[in-house]
C-alpha cells in the first residue's frame, strides 16, 4: 500500500485519510497527518517504524536544545548521529539483508539534517512543537521517496496552521492536487512501468547478446523509464501535498531541456540537488574559495550523491563520471570553447552522455556493465549470439510508449498544460486518463508477476 499507484492507496487510504483530515478541527489536523502517516508507514514496514520514531524524537530533542543559544557542537553531534544512522542502515541493507533498509530512510534523514541546520542557522524561528516536527518528518506523501521539502514550506499550509485561508477553498486544493496526481499516475503506470518491460527484456536476452541498436534503444528506454517513474512519483507526491494544503513542490523541471549537465541536475530531482547545494556545497565554501576548492567541493558533493543512491561501486562511478563532466563543463566547455560550440556540447552532454550515465546507474555488476558498453560501442568487442533483428522487434512493440515518452520530454508541453489545466477538455481527458491507469493497474492487481509473461 505504500505505493501511490496501488489500488488500496488510491481507493481506500487516500479518500479515507482526506475525509478524516478535513473533518478534524483545524487545530488538530497536524495530529491527523501524523497519525495517518505513521499508519501508512506501519503498513509498509512495521518492523522499521521504531527506527523512524526514534530518529524523530532524538532529532526533536536536539533541535529543542538549540532553542536559546545555538551550539555548534550540539549541531555536529546530531548530524553525526543522523549521518551515522543513514550509513549504518545502508550498509546493513547492502551487505546483510535488503529488508533491513527502512523505507524512505534516505529521504527522512535528509529532511532531519536540513531541519537541524536550518534551526542552527536561525532560518527556522517557529515555536517548536513535537507534533509539527514529527508530522513534517513523517508525512506520508513524502516519506517514501521525497520530495525533500523544507520545513518552512510545511509552515505555509493554511489548512493546518489556522492562518488566513484567503479565498482558497478546500475543494479547489483537492481538485488541483488531483490533477497533478493523475498526471503523475499516468506517467508512472502507462509509461514508466511499461518501459521497464523493455529494459527487462534487454536483460533477459543478456547484455552480451544484444545488438548495438538495441543497446542504445535500451539505454534510452531506461532513461525514459527512470524519468517518468520518478517524475510521475514526484507529481503524485506533490499532488497529494497540494490536496492537504501544502504548496506544490517542484522536483522535476524539464531536465532534458537543460543546456548542460550542471543545469540538468538543478532540474532533475531538484529538491535533492538544492539540498546538496545548501547543506554540503555551500557550507564547504561553494565556489568562493578558488578553483581548486570548487573542484574538491564538487567532488565531495558527487561522491556523496553517488553513495546516497546506493553503496555499490557503480553508484560511486556514476557520481564520479558526473563530477568529471560537470568540472569539464565549468572549466572547459563554457570557458574555453566559443559560445555556439559550448552550447552544442552542453546539449550533447544532456542528450547523449546522461543516458549513458543512467546505464552505469542501472547495472551494479562491473562485468555486466562492461558487456553492455561493449555492445553500445561494438569496436570494444564482439557480441555473443546476437540476433540483429532484436532492435526492430522491440521497437515494433514499444514504439507506442517510447514515442509519447520522447514527446513528453518537450518542455513547453508541461508548461502549456499547467497554464491551461482548468480547461474543460483537460478535465474530461484527466478523468479518462485516471480510469485508463486504473484499468492498467487492475490487470496486475493480485498478480505478483505484474510484468511476467513467459
Amino acid at each position: 500500500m505504500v505505493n501511490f499507484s496501488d489500488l488500496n492507496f488510491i481507493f481506500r487510504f487516500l479518500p479515507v485519510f482526506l475525509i478524516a483530515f478535513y473533518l478534524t478541527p483545524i487545530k488538530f489536523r497536524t495530529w491527523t497527518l501524523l497519525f495517518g502517516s505513521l499508519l501508512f508507514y506501519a503498513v509498509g514496514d512495521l518492523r522499521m517504524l521504531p527506527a523512524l520514531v526514534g530518529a524523530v524524537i532524538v532529532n526533536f530533542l536536539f533541535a529543542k536544545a538549540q532553542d536559546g543559544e545555538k551550539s555548534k557542537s550540539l549541531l555536529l553531534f546530531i548530524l553525526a548521529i543522523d549521518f551515522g544512522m543513514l550509513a549504518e542502515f545502508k550498509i546493513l541493507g547492502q551487505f546483510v539483508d535488503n529488508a533491513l533498509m527502512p523505507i524512505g530512510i534516505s529521504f527522512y534523514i535528509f529532511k532531519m539534517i536540513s531541519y537541524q541546520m536550518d534551526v542552527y542557522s536561525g532560518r527556522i524561528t517557529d515555536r517548536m512543537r513535537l507534533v509539527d516536527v514529527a508530522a513534517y518528518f513523517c508525512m506520508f506523501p513524502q516519506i517514501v521517496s521525497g520530495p525533500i521539502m523544507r520545513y518552512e514550506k510545511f509552515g505555509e499550509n493554511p489548512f493546518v496552521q489556522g492562518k488566513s485561508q484567503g479565498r482558497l477553498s478546500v475543494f479547489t486544493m483537492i481538485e488541483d492536487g488531483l490533477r497533478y496526481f493523475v498526471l503523475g499516475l499516468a506517467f508512472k503506470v502507462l509509461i514508466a512501468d511499461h518501459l521497464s518491460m523493455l529494459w527487462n527484456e534487454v536483460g533477459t536476452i543478456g547484455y552480451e547478446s544484444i545488438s548495438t541498436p538495441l543497446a542504445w534503444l535500451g539505454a534510452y528506454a531506461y532513461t525514459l523509464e527512470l524519468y517518468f517513474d520518478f517524475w510521475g512519483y514526484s507529481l503524485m507526491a506533490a499532488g497529494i501535498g497540494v490536496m492537504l494544503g501544502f504548496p506544490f513542490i517542484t522536483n522535476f523541471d524539464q531536465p532534458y531541456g537543460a543546456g548542460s549537465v550542471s543545469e540538468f541536475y538543478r532540474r532533475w530531482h531538484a529538491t535533492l540537488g538544492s539540498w546538496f547545494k545548501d547543506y554540503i556545497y555551500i557550507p564547504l565554501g561553494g565556489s568562493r574559495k578558488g578553483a581548486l576548492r570548487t573542484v574538491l567541493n564538487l567532488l565531495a558533493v558527487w561522491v556523496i550523491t553517488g553513495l546516497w543512491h546506493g553503496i555499490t561501486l557503480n553508484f560511486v562511478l556514476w557520481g564520479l563520471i558526473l563530477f568529471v563532466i560537470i568540472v569539464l563543463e565549468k572549466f572547459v566547455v563554457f570557458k574555453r570553447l566559443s559560445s555556439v560550440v559550448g552550447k552544442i556540447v552542453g546539449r550533447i552532454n544532456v542528450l547523449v552522455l546522461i543516458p549513458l550515465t543512467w546505464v552505469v546507474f542501472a547495472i551494479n555488476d562491473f562485468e555486466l556493465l562492461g558487456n553492455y558498453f561493449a555492445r553500445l560501442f561494438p569496436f570494444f568487442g564482439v557480441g555473443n549470439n546476437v540476433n540483429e533483428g532484436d532492435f526492430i522487434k522491440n521497437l515494433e512493440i514499444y514504439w507506442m510508449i517510447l514515442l509519447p515518452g520522447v514527446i513528453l520530454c518537450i518542455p513547453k508541453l508541461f508548461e502549456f498544460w499547467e497554464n491551461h489545466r482548468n480547461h474543460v477538455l483537460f478535465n474530461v481527458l484527466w478523468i479518462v486518463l485516471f480510469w485508463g491507469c486504473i484499468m492498467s493497474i487492475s490487470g496486475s492487481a493480485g498478480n505478483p508477476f505484474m510484468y511476467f509473461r513467459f
Partner: protein
Amino acid sequence: MKFKKLLMECPILIGITSIAILLTIVALCFKDTVYAGYAGEETFGRHPALAMVFRGARDNVFPWSSEGAAGANYEPVQESSEGDDEAFSEGEENAAQVSEDNADGSSDGGEDTSFESEDGGDISGNDAEDEETVYEFTEVDDDYFCDALFIGDSRTVGLSEYCEELDSRATFYSKVSLTIFACMDKEFIKTEEGTISVDQALRENSFGKIYIMLGLNEIGVGDTQYFKDAYKEVIDRITELQPDAIIYIQGIMHVAAKKSDHDKVFNNDIINERNAAIAELADQKRIFYIDMNEAVDDGNGNLDSTLSFDDVHLKASSYERWHEFLLHNAIVR
C-alpha cells in the same frame, strides 16, 4: 445550486468519485454472478471491489455478459489474467511477428517435409515392424530439424530467436504467454491469408517431428490432473491431424533457485509434478517425452542461475544448450 458550484470547482474529483461509486455498486451487484470468477478469497477484500470490473473487462467479461458464458470462461479467465497486462496486445503483435518470420520458413519446411518423408519411408520399413520396434534416443545433425515444428511459449520464442541452426530449418508456432489450453485454437500464426490457429496450420502443413514445450504460464491454473487432461487433448488432436509425425513432449524447463525457493506457484516442485504427469502421455512409439532440464541444471534440480537473467528464461547465449540436447536426444524411425 450548491452542487453546481461544487461541480464547477472540482469536476475531476466529482467525475472520478461518481464513476468509482458506480463501478463499486456494479461490482458488488454482480459479484456472485458475472464476476464470480474474480471474487475468490484471494482477491476479494484485498483489493477494492471495482478492480473486479476492470479485470473482467480485460477478459471481455461485462455485467451484460451472460452468466453461463462467464462460468464457462472460468478457467481461461483465470489463466489469462494470471499473466495479463497492458502490453498484452503488444505481446501478441510481437509473437505474431515471430511467427511471421517463420511463416516464410514454414513453406520451406513444407517442401522439406515431403522430401524427408519420401526419404524416411525407405528407412523405416513397414508399419507392422514399427509396432515391435523399441526406439532409442540417438544423435542427429541439424538437418533432422528441417521438417520439425516447435510449439511453445516465450521460451520457445527465445529458442527461435537465438538458435540460428533451428530457426533456419524448423518451423516455430510459438507465442509469448501461450498455454496448453489455448495453443490449438488461439489464432496467432500469421500467413499470407491472415492469422490462423495451430489447429488450422496443422491441417494445411505437415511435419515430421513436433516438439512441444508448454505449461509454465498455466502452472497456477487447475491441478496436475487438469493440466494433464488438457495436454492429452492437445496430443490427441495433433496425432489426429499429423498421424505420421513424431511428437516430442518436452518437460517444462525449471526456474532458477532464487525464484523457485520463494514462489508458491512458479516453483520446481510443481514443475516436476507436472512433468511427471505429462511424461505418462508418451507411448514410446510415436509420442516421446524428453526433458532438457538436465542440460541446464545447477546440480540441485534448478535452472542454473548463470544461464538466466530473470530466473525464468535462458539468456540468448544459453539456448545452445537446449539445441545440443535436442541434437543428442532424437528419435530416428
